[in-house]
């Protein structure tokens, strides 16, 4: 068995149904590199091992564990969980980092109980002090910064998607170790069928996007919401929406940003016709730069906007798009 660095950080990478590393992988490995030596765990069919290990190396993993789980697609969580537990036993890391995705949270929760480890969720960063790895959290919609640590042992930390900007230096030839995984005797749910997410355009995914253009009730109708999409395309941004716009049927729920939707912390957040209710701000106020355009000069969104325009989105945005395009040309 391979020897692992004393400051190893086990990173459980999500693999998409298409057989690629999930987008969260770069941030996870970047965070791991800040506090130790990343050891990436990849659970995928054997024929994908070489390609995925190389991809993990490019994202900064000097050491990669691969596990072949034949029924991975059939059984919910348990193959990844069994592999994560085996990897933990083999590596004895200082911390385990897992994506704060739906699947990642299930693995993290069960692994914490199975190996009796402290669990910190939805971290926006990690740090190391004399006693070990710490999780950094942004709580109540970014109103508080909290640092958390385990009383003893290695923490399991789920990392919010898109929150970590750090990237690890690429490793040309990572060490690849095949992991033996004993299957669990606990019952697991069965995945009967999967409909892959329909990618309706070349736009980036909302979660983890570097730029987000979001529209609110101020757009007025489903047809007029196209303006949001036009600006998103001009900026290469993902499309978001307020709950009011989703409830009014302008866009599907998957685009909802806020307390009850997706939390984003992009480099740029453009709010069009969004008043800025507390519930909406909770999901976006950690954005690096916030731009707001709204007819109502008293809208609460202006209280947190770095650049606010009091005006009609239907005149300001087309002018903005034209100006952006003329600069590009």
């Amino acid at each position: 068995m391979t020897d692992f660095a004393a400051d190893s950080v086990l990173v459980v990478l999500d693999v998409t149904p298409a057989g690629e590393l999930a987008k969260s992988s770069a941030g996870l490995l970047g965070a791991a590199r800040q506090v130790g030596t990343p050891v990436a765990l990849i659970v995928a069919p054997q024929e994908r091992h070489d390609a995925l290990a190389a991809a993990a190396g490019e994202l900064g993993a000097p050491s990669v564990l691969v596990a072949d789980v034949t029924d991975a697609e059939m059984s919910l969580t348990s193959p990844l969980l069994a592999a994560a537990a085996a990897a933990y036993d083999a590596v004895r890391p200082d911390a385990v980092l897992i994506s704060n995705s739906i699947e990642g949270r299930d693995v993290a929760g069960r692994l914490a109980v199975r190996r009796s480890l402290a669990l910190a969720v939805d971290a926006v960063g990690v740090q190391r002090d004399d006693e070990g790895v710490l999780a950094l959290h942004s709580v109540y919609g970014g109103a508080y910064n909290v640092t958390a640590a385990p009383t003893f042992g290695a923490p399991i930390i789920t990392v919010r998607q898109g929150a970590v900007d750090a990237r690890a230096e690429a490793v040309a030839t990572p060490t690849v170790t095949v992991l033996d995984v004993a299957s669990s005797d606990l019952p697991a749910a069965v995945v009967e069928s999967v409909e892959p997410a329909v990618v309706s355009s070349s736009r980036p995914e909302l979660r983890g996007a570097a730029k987000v253009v979001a529209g609110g009730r101020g757009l007025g109708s489903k047809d007029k919401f196209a303006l949001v999409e036009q600006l998103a395309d001009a900026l290469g941004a993902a499309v978001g929406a307020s709950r009011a716009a989703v409830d009014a049927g302008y866009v599907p729920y998957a685009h909802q940003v806020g307390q009850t939707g997706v939390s984003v912390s992009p480099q740029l957040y453009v709010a069009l016709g969004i008043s800025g209710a507390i519930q909406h701000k909770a999901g976006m106020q950690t954005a690096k730069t916030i731009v707001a355009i709204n007819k109502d000069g008293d809208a609460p969104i202006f209280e947190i906007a770095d650049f606010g325009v009091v005006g009609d989105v239907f005149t300001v945005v087309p002018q903005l798009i034209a100006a952006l395009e003329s600069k590009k040309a």
Partner: protein
Amino acid sequence: MKIVVLVKEVPDTYGDRKLSLETGLADRAASERVLDEIGERALEVALSYADANAGTDVTVMSMASGDAAATLRKGLAMGAATAVQISDDALAGADLGVTAKVLAAAVKREGFDLVITGNLSTDGMAGVLPAMLAEHLRVSHVTSLSAVEISETSVRGTRATDDGTATVSAALPAVISITEALPDARFPNFKGIMAAKKKPFTTLSLADLEVDVDVTAAPQIIMTAITEKPPRGAGVKIVDEGDAGEKLAAFLIENRLA
């Protein structure tokens, strides 16, 4: 069929929510406390099944400080048959590990075929308790369901993740969590509120559950530092005089955001 629904009292998100900068714990006095909406939806799933299937026993359960009893009683008023509250001073500031251990012990004591929870609470937003509970209870979990069918022996549903939508199923007993795509909960009516006063309401302590939450027993997460972020200041605000789009474009380009 015995269904246990986990509910939680949370600070109302329609007001300001505060953490104490001394203890790092939620400042209960700072905001209204309400029954979390996602827990109400979870209860609605159980109650709809109970409406259609006689002999279904629905219990609402919560780990919460003593004054949360009123909130839990709303679950009885909506139609749950019994309520269980786990309350102990030693649980103040409990982390996820402790919470899962305690709730699992209480669920085991109560007995269950199905445990239903919300996918994420509006305060902690951790989203890991269902999986942790399932591991403690040694049963399967099916999380983030946007549609649920319950039968005598199994549970089946639609699970939307970042990658797509899956149809998943599990044999009972199991732990499931549901999303806010499921229907709104019913309102308790007057009859329900009156009936709730006579329904069994059990309060359990850690001693009753024989759970050890001592910090030497298992690692816990503790807060080591907390700071309140200065409120985000407003930046430039301009009123459109016909050139706001161009000014905004210049701002984006200057800050390398275009």
